[in-house]
């Protein structure tokens, strides 16, 4: 069973930049793990280390039952697809597809057959004699995908392959990759900065920030039980609203107090907070509903975003900003004073200093 095991990988570049810290991960056969995080968080570095293009400072990489450390890229049995500049501009599509085969000494006829086969699968047969400059971005990435497939690797590494494509292309290729994943069952590591993509494609998702793993879980877990404030606000569009506030007992009832948000705490919640006086409360925009009775969350509308079947409100109250998302449309306008209702039992609490989920 092909498994990729990354054990305590860290990478410090000369000059002191720590790109990755203590990264560990296991990717099982047939799994697509998405790695997501803002730019510069070390995602690409990770892929390069696995492929052998970069050497890790500590830790080890094993694929299947082989230790990959010390092996040059060509012996690692990986295939990598980059965001751009993947196809050699001076070769035709078919030459690009067969490039790896040619390097490895595959005889010409066999090469041709295999190239044709994969071109059929990916629907690019008409493009075979064209040059990369003459085809669209989506088609180029398809060719890159084809070349990776021909490699027959033990693991696919995708480095933001869809990021430079337009929205429609992106969706099409995403479907292709998913199909590929279903068919081949080869493990895949998919790096992206688009959390939507990560959540859609990944069986599991790793959230990276500044070299550290913030959380590694299924998309559902990430959404419902974010491990810390970073993950909470990163996942979701828009991400979870975070309110910094104090815990005080007024009139014998413990409650959460902040400029925009106030509510009573249940016993269970008090227990969770363990006597903290300052805490961060989190509510997802999708959990909010327009309020009619005693408003516990209120503010001025600063902007309204009408999406196809949803409306997104951007709110502000004093120094706090938050967002809300409701199905359907609204007659509210920017500048209106608006109040929101929320399910107080579902509120997430995070430690003020560490940001960890309580």
């Amino acid at each position, binding site marked *: 069973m092909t498994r990729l095991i990354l054990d305590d990988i860290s990478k410090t570049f000369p000059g002191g930049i720590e790109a990755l810290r203590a990264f560990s991960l296991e990717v099982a056969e047939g799994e697509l793990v998405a790695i997501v995080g803002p730019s510069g968080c070390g995602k690409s570095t990770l892929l390069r280390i696995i492929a052998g*293009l970069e*050497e890790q400072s500590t830790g080890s990489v094993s694929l299947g039952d082989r230790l990959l450390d*010390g092996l*040059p*890229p060509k012996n690692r049995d990986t295939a990598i697809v980059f965001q751009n500049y993947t196809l050699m501009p001076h070769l035709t599509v078919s030459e690009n597809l067969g490039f790896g085969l040619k390097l490895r000494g595959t005889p010409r006829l066999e090469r041709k057959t295999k190239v044709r086969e994969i071109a059929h699968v990916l629907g690019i047969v008409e493009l075979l004699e064209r040059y990369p400059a003459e085809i669209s971005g989506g088609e180029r990435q398809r060719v890159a995908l084809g070349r990776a497939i021909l490699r027959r690797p033990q693991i696919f590494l995708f480095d933001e392959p869809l990021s430079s494509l337009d929205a429609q292309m992106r969706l099409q290729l995403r479907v292709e990759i998913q199909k590929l994943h279903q068919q081949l069952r080869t493990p895949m590591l998919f790096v992206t900065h688009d959390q939507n993509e990560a959540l859609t494609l990944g069986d599991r998702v790793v959230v990276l920030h500044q070299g550290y793993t913030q959380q590694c879980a299924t998309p559902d877990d990430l959404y419902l039980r974010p491990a810390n404030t970073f993950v909470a606000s990163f996942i979701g569009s828009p991400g979870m609203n975070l309110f910094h506030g104090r815990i005080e007992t007024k009139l014998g009832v413990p409650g959460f107090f902040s400029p925009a948000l106030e509510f009573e705490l249940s016993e269970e919640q008090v227990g969770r907070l363990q006597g903290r006086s300052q805490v961060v409360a989190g509510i997802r925009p999708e959990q909010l509903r327009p309020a009619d009775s005693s408003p516990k969350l209120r503010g001025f509308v600063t902007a309204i975003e009408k999406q196809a079947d949803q409306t997104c409100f951007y709110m502000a109250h004093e120094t706090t900003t938050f967002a809300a998302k409701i199905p359907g449309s609204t007659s509210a306008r920017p500048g209106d004073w608006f109040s929101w209702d929320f399910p107080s039992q579902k509120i997430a609490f995070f430690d003020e200093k560490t940001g960890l989920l309580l």
Partner: protein
Amino acid sequence: MFPAKRFPIKKQAAPLMATLALAALCVAFAFPFVWMFCASFKSDADIFTPFPLLPHHFNPRYYSSLLDGSWIPYPRQFLNSLFIAIVETFLATSFAAGSGYVFAKFHFRHKQPLFILAVLTVLIPRQVLILPLFIWMNKLSLLDTPWSVILPGAASGIGILYFTAIFRRLPDALLDMTRCEGAGEYRVFLGALPLVKPALIAFALIQFVLCWQEHLVPLIMLSTQTHLTVTVGLSSLNAGSMRVPYGLLLAGCTLTVVPTALFFALVHRQFQSALSRLTEA
């Protein structure tokens, strides 16, 4: 980029070996100049003992005899070279930049043949035309003046190629913005120039160096000693019938090399970016 070897020893060896190999070559390339510099200060007997490099007695007399014009009017020739190089550079750069802008940004009926014509000047260089040029300059009464050297160099075919490529890569959107704000075409052009400043500087640099080094054209066009350029003056020293002290020649060489070497050292970075533009173009 080639992969650095995996094993620590080899990884550190590669840059070291490369540096050593290049250093050896640098020594080979630069040694003559170092020798030239040192030997120009040596006494006559010592000149041909290359080692030790440094002179026993530091003797700048050849420099002084050059600079006070006792052999050839060197200072005057130096100024001539400077004048010619500066003016020719200015003309070549501005002519080529202006035309490059037009070729890149405008369409008109005879564009293609005109461009081909401009490029043809690269294939038929000045040196080939030197004789008819000589006669023509004579007819124009420009012979023996700096202009006989400057003007033939004002139309640079390579300049057209270079600046056309440079301006083509300038996004039209930038220029259109200025147009929409009501600027006339003249203003638009002037506004485009700062955007290509590095390329202008780089080209001017290369032009200057080439002009400074010109030999054949000034040799043929200029005759009076006080009108010669430095390079021709030097060669006249060498080819002259009297035996000229080697030290003098070396001093002359050093003085001729110094301006462009200094120039390069100062604007090294722009030069590098100029080269990268050249390769992209």
